């Protein structure tokens, strides 16, 4: 019966969402005890943040290059090319910075987290930890979760800075937009709380989403090579879609 199938689907989906929510709050609650062992978090910030820096910085630079070319092409038609710095900066801090960084973070650090946790599970390392009376959620998942939330806004800032440098190189050095106008328009047009602040809030929310999805998928992965591979793929797909959906919600809420 089709009604039974729909009912079954709704019921199992709600159970999955409920289970995921319970896991989310469990990880969150276990973060509270980490203030006593900050080293666990800083190690993970180094691991997932520092190692993602190169790809984030290079991507930011190229996004800045392209933004400057595209922006100049449009602004030039209205004789407003001196506003190029403002356009590049606003596009980056309000939208592209948080979103593209989160997507790259999901691909670089998220997959690595899922594979790491999945392989720890397959190698009975998490079971061994439990048998040693150590809670793997507190010892393994919570530090990585917190590190992701801290690392993503920092990476977003690096992405934004590199993007602005890229925009400057193309706009000012290659195309010849006035240097003073480029920086002064940016300085006067970008608001700290409305633009930069909202961008930071977005990147923190994305940090929660991507880190949780990556860790949850790893923790719930089937402990086989195929299971870990599937979980890694799911991390990229779910976290990317979640970032775009959350971005829409946050943008609608922030700039209404």
């Amino acid at each position, binding site marked *: 019966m089709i009604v039974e199938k729909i009912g079954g689907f709704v019921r199992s989906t709600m159970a999955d969402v409920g289970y995921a929510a319970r896991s989310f709050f469990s990880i969150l609650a276990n973060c509270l005890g980490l203030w006593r062992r900050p080293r666990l978090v800083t190690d993970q910030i180094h691991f997932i943040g520092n190692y993602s820096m190169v790809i984030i910085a290079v991507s930011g630079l190229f996004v800045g290059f392209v933004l400057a070319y595209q922006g100049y092409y449009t602004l030039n038609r209205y004789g407003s090319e001196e506003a190029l710095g403002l356009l590049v900066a606003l596009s980056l801090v309000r939208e592209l910075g948080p979103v593209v960084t989160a997507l790259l973070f999901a691909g670089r650090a998220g997959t690595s987290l899922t594979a790491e946790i999945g*392989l*720890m599970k397959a*190698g*009975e*390392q998490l*079971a*061994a930890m*439990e*048998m*040693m*009376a*150590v*809670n793997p959620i507190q*010892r393994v998942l919570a530090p990585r979760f917190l590190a992701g939330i801290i690392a993503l806004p920092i990476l977003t800032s690096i992405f934004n800075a590199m993007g602005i440098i890229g925009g400057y190189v193309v706009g000012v050095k290659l195309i010849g937009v006035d240097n003073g106008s480029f920086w002064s328009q940016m300085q006067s047009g970008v608001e700290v709380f409305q633009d930069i602040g909202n961008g930071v809030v977005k990147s923190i929310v994305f940090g929660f989403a991507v880190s949780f999805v990556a860790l949850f998928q790893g923790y719930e992965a089937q402990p086989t090579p195929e299971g870990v591979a599937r979980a890694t793929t799911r991390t990229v797909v779910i976290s990317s879609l979640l970032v775009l959906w959350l971005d829409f919600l946050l943008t609608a809420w922030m700039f209404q």
Partner: protein
Amino acid sequence: MPNLVEIRDIQFGYGDRTILSELRMDFPRGKLIAVMGGSGSGKTTILRLIGGQIRAQLGSIKVNGQEVSALDTQGLYAIRRKMGMLFQHGALFTDLNVFDNVAFPMREHTNLSEAMIRDLVLLKLQAVGLRNAAGLMPAEISGGMARRVALARAVALDPELIMYDEPFAGLDPISMGVAANLIRNLNDALGSTSILVSHDVHETFAIADYVYFLSKGKIVAQGTPEEMRVSEDPYVKQFVHAEADGPVPFHYPGASLQADLGLEKRT
């Protein structure tokens, strides 16, 4: 109480599939008790039940007088602090070196200084012959060495109960002999109780005080290794003498070869 662990009338299964039934076992303090049986006989499940990783549908498991199934997470963690477990493939933490793996339980559960932990870890590694491998990563050591490191980690906090899940599987004869001697010596030196799950007859009989034989989730024989060696029980005989056919059939049950080849009517 003479028994550290007592299992009474345990029933455990997944769905309709019964894994263990009507099990009664005693694990006296200070003894090394072996649980033997073929693959899929439910040996590892017993260890997981004792450790509280899974819960039985019926029956009772008492560790140090405490009913395991009645414990909450905190209670389980409290009794696990007095247990050590050696997993089949060691389950070493691959992001930590040998030293940090052995130090892990000490750092998690004690307030000892790093200097004290260093001394204790080196002594544990000395006991398993790997003091000079302290700086190596798990990927840089052999399977036998990994098992010994895991053994040092399992006894890091001098547990009352040590559980070994197939400690000899996949080891060469030298490593197997080393592991067997270590298990016996550590049990005696620490005054612990050990539960050894294995299907290696020679090594297990050499070190165990008492043996339970398990088949299809039930105990089919029990006694000292000497009694088991001369046992006339068909299952024990087949197992101890590695006979291909017997109570455990060589062929997976089903239709006969003649029936499959169309030489007789299918049943």
